[in-house]
């Protein structure tokens, strides 16, 4: 009964402050829309410079592959000087250079060298672009051998089978990861200031003289935000599936359980910050530092954890988002694979336990 009153009080408080509602519902929608469309690693229509020193039928055959590809939008340049200047200005991402003796060398045994220069500043993008160039090149080889009526002579050919995401759409793995990042933000933001605010305003003392126990105060704080957070989560999942067309191959109950575990950890982290700081200013600063950037960079959402150096890899284990990203990517793209889901869920349970354990110890009914 007493509990119900407390929860009601917190709910009312939440409802009256529009910012909490905004955090829970508006934030995921805006962020997911912005990032779901904005964050993409698939380059299309990459501007490249074509420098053909001596245009003829052979070079036209070669450049035609690039002109028809949706990955490139070639721009013709008359000389290397102009093309290089364009690259320095950032107008093109790469240069494809066919020398004047291209058509002669194509007919010789050694073959004609084609010079490719890519802008290596964005190394990842540069690698993707040179991958596309290679794709266009092997398509041209196939055309060549067909038109000359000779069989393609390739010793070993790679035959790739990509599971779970056969078209390698980056959105399909980024959107589930984004949900994890966004939920980290929401969980942390909702609760980061809550306890600190009560301490700062002195209402904590007022609550203390009432017969409610600390556990009840904490639960009263937690329940409304949990409900809000799950609402935001549900909204994100709906958007991922309907708006972005990410396949959901696992089951909804699994997703629900995993999300509630993660939300507990995220809210717990916010509450912990708030309890320890006892000062909204510091709590706010700490929340900015520990929630967003670690979830963005260390969770495996965009940077592969296996490729990090060992100490960093060990460190990522304290980032809750890491487990949730793994769970979400698996549930969305691969299905209910228990060997992945269970260890991650277990880690989340342990983290939630630790957070609430510390909160309980630190927030005894006691004044300083």
């Amino acid at each position, binding site marked *: 009964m007493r509990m119900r009153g407390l929860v009601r009080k917190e709910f009312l408080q939440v409802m009256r*402050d529009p910012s909490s509602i905004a955090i829970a519902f508006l934030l995921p929608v805006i962020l997911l829309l912005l990032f779901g469309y904005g964050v993409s690693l698939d380059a299309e229509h990459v501007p490249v410079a074509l420098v053909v020193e001596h245009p003829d039928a052979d070079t036209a055959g070669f450049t035609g592959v690039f002109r028809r590809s949706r990955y490139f939008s070639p721009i013709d340049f008359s000389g290397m000087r102009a093309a290089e200047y364009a690259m320095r200005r950032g107008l093109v991402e790469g240069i494809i250079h066919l020398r004047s003796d291209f058509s002669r060398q194509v007919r010789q045994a050694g073959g004609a060298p084609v010079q490719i220069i890519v802008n*290596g500043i964005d*190394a990842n993008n540069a690698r993707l672009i040179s991958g596309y160039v290679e794709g266009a090149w092997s398509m041209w080889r196939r055309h060549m051998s067909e038109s000359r009526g000779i069989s393609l002579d390739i010793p070993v050919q790679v035959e790739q089978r990509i599971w779970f995401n056969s078209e390698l759409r980056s959105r399909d*793995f980024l959107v589930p990861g984004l949900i994890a990042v966004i939920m980290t933000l929401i969980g942390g933001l909702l609760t980061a200031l809550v306890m600190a605010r009560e301490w700062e305003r002195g209402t904590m003392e007022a609550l203390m003289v009432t017969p409610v126990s600390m556990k009840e105060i904490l639960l009263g704080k937690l329940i409304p935000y949990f409900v809000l957070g799950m609402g935001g989560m549900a909204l994100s999942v709906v958007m991922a599936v309907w708006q972005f067309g990410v396949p959901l191959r696992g089951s909804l109950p699994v997703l629900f359980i995993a999300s509630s575990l993660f939300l507990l950890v995220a809210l717990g982290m916010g509450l912990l910050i708030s309890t320890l700081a006892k000062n909204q200013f510091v709590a706010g600063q700490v929340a900015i530092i520990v929630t967003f950037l670690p979830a963005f960079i260390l969770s495996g959402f*965009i940077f592969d954890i296996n490729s990090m150096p060992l100490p960093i890899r060990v*460190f990522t284990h304290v980032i809750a988002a890491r487990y949730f990203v793994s769970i979400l990517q698996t549930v969305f793209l691969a299905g209910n694979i228990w060997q992945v889901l269970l260890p991650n869920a277990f880690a989340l349970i342990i983290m939630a336990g630790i957070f609430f354990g510390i909160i309980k110890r630190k927030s005894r009914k006691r004044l300083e």
Partner: protein
Amino acid sequence: MIKEFLSLLKDKKSRVVVVVPPLVQLIVFGYAATFDLTHVPYAVYNEDRGAAGRDILAGFGGSKNFSRSAVITHEEEIRPLIDNKKVLLVLHLGPTFSRDLLSGRTASLQVIIDGRNSNTAMLALSYINSIVRRFNEQWAAEHGRRGPPAMLVTRAWFNPNLESRWFIVPGIVGLLTLVVTMLVTALSVAREREQGTFDQLLVTPLRPVEILIGKALPGLIIGIFEATVIILMAVFWFRVPLLGSLITLYTGVALFLLSAIGVGLMISSLAVTQQQGLLGAFLFLVPAIILSGFTTPIANMPQVIQYITLLNPMRYFMVVLRGVFLEGAPFHLLIGQLWPMAVIGVVSLAAAGWLFRHRMY
């Protein structure tokens, strides 16, 4: 003005929050944030017993990008390995691999790869393709097979080994500078409003401009200090080349700080409570970072979102940082990036100053 500094420095927790985390974060993120793949776990399913098959597998064994973690003998073993993320990919040589190769046919190397992280999958495939291409060239030369009619000679400018750390670490300079300035500015006015000291400040003979300068200066000084430390770390710890001039770099830093402080103060003076200030800071910070081109190129975004990024000071700063660090870009090539930051800074600072007076409640 001195008061602002003191109030920031007096709060011990605040002080720790502003100085320590950026350094820790630089080191952790500098190492963590890389797109280069190392130690990709893979399994070998070799049904071929020939020497040629062993040769091509040796190419993977010798690469630091891959590390073999399983050898399997049955097709049924593939699925659990990939499902459970024990390996990222399985290399499969069919029973006729060596025979096909020796008799002049095309042998096929089957790669089964986990596409859950499509970028990792794509990069791993491109590593595989280059190992196979090298093998092909060698094989064609040794066995007198006809080479391709044209081959690609690829060179990367500015970053010859395509190290993504060179790309990411200068970005982190911008990232952390932005976070620190937001920390210092975004809650400052809101806190004073909540505590009522801001009203006192307004009734003093100080003009809004002076209050504005007082609020902006600590952020500027702390920001420049942090940026300097981070730049030093980037150059001496992470060994990222700094080719351009320091004057260009610091012009960029100063203009960027101006715009970041402006936005931070604007948020802060719009907010009535600290909670709203925090929310506002996040609402700016998160999109500003994700849509800045820090990790994913702006050119890949849909046109509408590309227009939105024009309002983002981070976007221009990223270009300046990478241009100065890696390209050694001269001042005049970067003017197009510098003036938008100045405009954003001036407009947002003016708005903040106006809001000081006019947002009473």
